[in-house]
């Protein structure tokens, strides 16, 4: 699936267990500028629930989730504030 938004940073958190991928994403969002788009690759099934929930709670924008091969999913987030 092609992605129309410009991803400024992609984190590879494959092989990391919960809460690894979420914590990696939180660190990246903290370091990013408002408006930037961050993607995180995770094979941890917990991420499907945890990542969108955190993005909503933190007031950022969850742009979507796409398959990235096997069990791995790519989560795309825009820093909104």
């Amino acid at each position, binding site marked *: 699936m092609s992605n129309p938004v410009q991803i400024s940073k992609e984190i590879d958190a494959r092989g990391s267990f*919960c*809460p*690894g991928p*979420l914590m990696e994403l*939180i660190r990246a969002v903290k370091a990013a500028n408002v408006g930037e788009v961050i993607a995180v690759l995770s094979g941890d099934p917990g991420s499907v629930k*945890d990542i969108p*929930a*955190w993005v909503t709670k*933190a*007031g950022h924008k969850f742009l979507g989730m796409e398959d990235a091969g096997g069990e791995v999913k790519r989560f795309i987030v825009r820093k909104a504030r």
Partner: protein
Amino acid sequence: MKRILVLGGGTGGTLIANLLAKKLKNEAQITLVSASSRHLYQPGWLYVPFGWQDPRALSRSLKSLLNKRVQLEIGKVDRLDLPAQAVVLEEGNTLYYDYLVVATGSRVTPEDVPGLAEGAHHFYTEEAAWKLHAVLEEWQGGRIVVGVGGLPHKCPVAPLEFTFLLDEYLTRRGLRDKTEITYTYPINRVFSIESVAEVAEPLLKERGVKIETFFNLESVDPEKKLAISLEGSSLPYDLLVMIPPHRGAQFLEGSPIADAQGWVYTDRTTLQVKDYPNIYALGDTTNLPISKAGSTAHFEAPVIAEHIAAEIQGRAVDLQHASYNGKVTCFLETGYGKASILAFDYDHPPKPPAPSWLYHYEKMAFNKAYWYLVPTGVI
């Protein structure tokens, strides 16, 4: 004679040096480098803030715990010289090795969060635990916020244990009704492992502890007494007990064997350091996705000792001790004389039993027996 250098005098370093000394007799020269001449029993610090443990009883001379064949060098590591297979100490002397074991643990870095050092207490160093005791002694009521200021941190269940013990302590002193306790955690449950969160959350609720999840500490305002999160929430407090963020040893930050936070790239089963087959790491030092706890080092040390000893003795490794499966066992104090126990590995999450008196007494016994059993390699 082969030279084995062990960095770190905590549970992992002391145990591995002793195991190697037993296995190799006079076949290798074993040197342990430690920044301190004391070996600290860090799990005991949990009880210090409540006055239930004298901090002086939580350390011993490192020398007294080491096998006589282990040479002890007191000094702080300045840097690794990987091409020369050497470790340079801050005082300037250089130690060469054929095998290196990195067991330098983790350190708290409150400076990573603005205002944290000035505004919060914790119990993750001997001194901080003692200071928190002084504050709790004077406590007369108000708002206490207990939380986790960064993941990963050592002894993962300790903040939960502290919260349960705090509830007990305040109840015993008749101050619980006058105190509001809030527990914060960075992700959307009270603990990273779901099965543990499922046991802990009802207990927190039962004790009237308020829960604030998805709370990633961004800063502390010591003047306004506010803990502020990355998610945009802020919690007012009269006493803030926040586990500071952690990093690996300073000399590892920026080293080719570690990531930016100083966690060493370690193979999950052989415990060999990535790209350096003669270097091993264990305990808090590693980047492995398992607990940063003495128990982890305890189960990892025999694997490393077997690999190094087999290579020096020119024999095949004993398959029974050749790989680490992520085994960790630790207790979870739940207050009022009860505890649960967590036993797990890479493939099997813990199934904590209902808290009971038995596990609490086991933990108390272990805290005392530690000195005779663990660093020396008896168990």
